[in-house]
């Protein structure tokens, strides 16, 4: 009798397979091409401001200082700072094309981190942190094995036969990028859970109405719709928590990554974030494994798209580099180009003359300020207006998560009328009243409640009873004895249609 031996896999063999299986690093190569490009967008934008943001002739602000550890990093004179900045940009561009890739990232990544740490006020953000992680992983990876200038030059050197099979490398760098995002999203979910007013929509609302990022007109519209904010908040947190558990499932990863792409596009639309979604979506390419690339290639070939054009830039670069004298190492070429870039950057900074100190009239003058305006700003201890303590006052008939889910101005007998005021923190303990007035401003009902300093909203609920005749009414919000806001509503219908009165009618 034959018995079949079953092969039991230990947890270590599973981990070994997960981290050290060998594949052609196509996904990693795509991250290598896109992530540095996205990370360079804000850095290139700051090229003309290096003197001001990152040098001794400006006002850098190190992250170490904010954490109470003093100025740990050396701040360089402007010429050296701009030269290094130019080398950083050059190195990351070389990384994109895959020319001396490991050298490029070993130089470019630390410089990227250095300059970001030097300006934590206006340069270093969480997308810089994510980019830093990925750049460091790319520096120790074999992302240049495919789709790079290095791969082309190696293929030409080794001969055509060596290029028949794509090189296979361990997948652990791609896995680390994937796991990084699991931690990023899980940590972000923890932050939201710990933020008191996130699940009632206030935090999203205040963020969407802040003008600290780029323009976000859709976000400003969403900020006034509480149901949208509540639903978005819950979907975000649920997705962030489930991301690590779905990202490697055959079907689940399409869901996790698909929602991720939509989420990041929504942050661009609703919050005005531009670079953050680009950085994150470019890192999603690390989730593409070899079988995905093969499937995409088959699909693209069926559409007969000229994908060979995509390789033209790196082939052109490779041909140019191959023209060098044979005895000149590639690293020397790289370093020579980096030196030229450094000198060019220093010259560009000198010619730009950011501060205008070398103009004909000398240093630029400061603008004078009208004395009355200046004194009004300096000596103006105006107390907060009572109405500025309130964000909004609305009436509706439904609640969602404690917040008003709709707005209504017409009610019939038996309907619930809910008046809600949202209050801006920080505020003191308040006594807030809401009164119902008829069309001739006669008070029909008045109710008040304490709104303690930790409360962000207060609800007043009425049942439209039989003591009010059909007509126009107003709900008037008062605080500190002052009228804050007024909302009009119409009561329609026949009071006789009401069922027998119940004891809880208020009017």
């Amino acid at each position: 009798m034959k018995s079949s031996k079953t092969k039991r896999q230990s947890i270590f063999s599973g981990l070994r397979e997960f981290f050290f299986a060998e594949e052609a690093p196509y996904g990693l190569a795509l991250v290598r091409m896109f992530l540095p490009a996205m990370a360079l967008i804000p850095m290139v934008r700051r090229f003309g401001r290096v003197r001001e943001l990152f040098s001794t002739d400006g006002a850098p602000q190190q992250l170490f200082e904010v954490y109470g550890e003093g100025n740990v990093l050396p701040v360089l004179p402007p010429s050296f700072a701009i030269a290094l900045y130019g080398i950083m940009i050059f190195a990351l561009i070389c990384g994109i094309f895959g020319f001396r890739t490991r050298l490029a990232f070993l130089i470019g990544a630390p410089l990227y981190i250095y300059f970001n740490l030097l300006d934590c006020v206006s340069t270093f953000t969480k997308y810089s942190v994510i980019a830093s992680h990925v750049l460091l992983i790319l520096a120790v990876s074999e992302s240049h094995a495919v789709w790079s200038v290095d791969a082309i030059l190696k293929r030409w050197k080794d001969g055509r036969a060596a290029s028949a099979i794509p090189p296979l490398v361990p997948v652990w760098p791609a896995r680390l990028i994937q796991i990084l995002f699991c931690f990023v999203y899980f940590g972000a979910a923890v932050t939201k859970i710990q933020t008191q007013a996130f699940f009632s929509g206030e935090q999203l609302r205040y963020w969407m109405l802040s003008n600290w990022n780029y323009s976000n007109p859709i976000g400003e519209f969403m900020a006034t719709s509480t149901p949208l904010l509540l639903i978005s908040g819950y979907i975000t947190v649920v997705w962030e928590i489930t991301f690590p558990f779905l990202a490697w499932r055959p079907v689940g990863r399409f869901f996790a990554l698909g929602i991720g792409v939509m989420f990041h596009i929504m942050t661009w639309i609703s919050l005005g974030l531009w670079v953050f979604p680009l950085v994150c979506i470019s890192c999603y390419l690390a989730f593409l494994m070899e079988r995905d690339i093969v499937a995409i290639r088959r699909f693209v070939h069926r559409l007969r798209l000229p994908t060979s054009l995509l390789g033209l830039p790196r082939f052109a670069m490779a041909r140019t580099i191959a023209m060098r004298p044979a005895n000149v190492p590639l690293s020397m070429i790289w370093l020579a180009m980096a030196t030229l870039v450094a000198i060019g950057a220093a010259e560009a900074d000198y010619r730009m003359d950011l501060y205008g100190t070398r103009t004909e009239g000398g240093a630029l003058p400061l603008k004078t300020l009208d004395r009355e305006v200046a004194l009004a700003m300096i000596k103006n201890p105006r107390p907060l207006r009572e109405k500025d303590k309130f964000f909004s006052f609305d009436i509706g008939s439904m609640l969602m998560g404690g917040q008003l889910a709709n707005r209504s101005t017409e009610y019939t007998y038996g309907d619930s009328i809910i008046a809600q005021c949202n209050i801006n923190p920080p505020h003191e303990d308040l006594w807030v009243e809401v009164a119902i007035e008829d069309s001739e401003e006669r008070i029909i009902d008045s109710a008040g409640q304490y709104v303690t300093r930790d409360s962000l909203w207060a609800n007043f609920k009425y049942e439209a009873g039989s003591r009010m005749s059909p007509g126009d009414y107003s709900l008037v919000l008062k605080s500190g004895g002052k009228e804050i806001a007024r909302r009009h509503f119409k009561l329609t219908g026949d009071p006789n249609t009401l069922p027998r009165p119940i004891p809880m009618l208020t009017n």
Partner: protein
Amino acid sequence: MRLKRWASVLFVISYLCVLAWGTGAHALKFGLVGNTLSYFVVWDMFCGWNAYDNRTHIIAEDANGTFYEVREPWGAFTPFGNVDRINYDVSNHLVARHINNVISHTSHPDFDRVYIVQEIWPKQFNVPSNLWSYNFSEPMEKVSYFHLRSICAANGNSIETYPDWFNRQTLMTIADNPRLQQAAREATPYYNTYFNPVANNLQNRFQVTSDSNGLNTN
């Protein structure tokens, strides 16, 4: 090859441990204070937004009483959108350096004082005018509140500092309580000179010099 594999394994384990520490420390809130590198592993991208918007204005005054706007004449850098860089300085570490940088690179008379003023307004007034009437029945009457944050010398060194508007409002909401104010007035301040009995070996001297109850601390 074997060395390369071991190095890879070590890198993977170390990296995962660092990521796990960051998330765990953030969730349980320990080990993060004063640790700059924790910024690389703590994912607190949504840590709270104020209900009031604020901007920072810097005003210098010369000996003749003329006021100047201390703002970069070469054009302020706007890192994200159209808000000047100085407004992102939430911790107020940059402002002194910023003042010195602008003043030292511009032409002007000597300054006696530099005032740092916060401009505050409620965020509902950031709703664009085309959406305002849809959401609010009242006319849009935005009022800005100005709050003096600090008075500095011309090189940015602080001479007088006041709590920022948000902290001040929070303190006022707590102080707006007559019972609390009364309790605070009735409390007796207690001062003690810090000393370290162990370092100074005072235990034995205590027994020798104290009164019969051993309660004399100085």
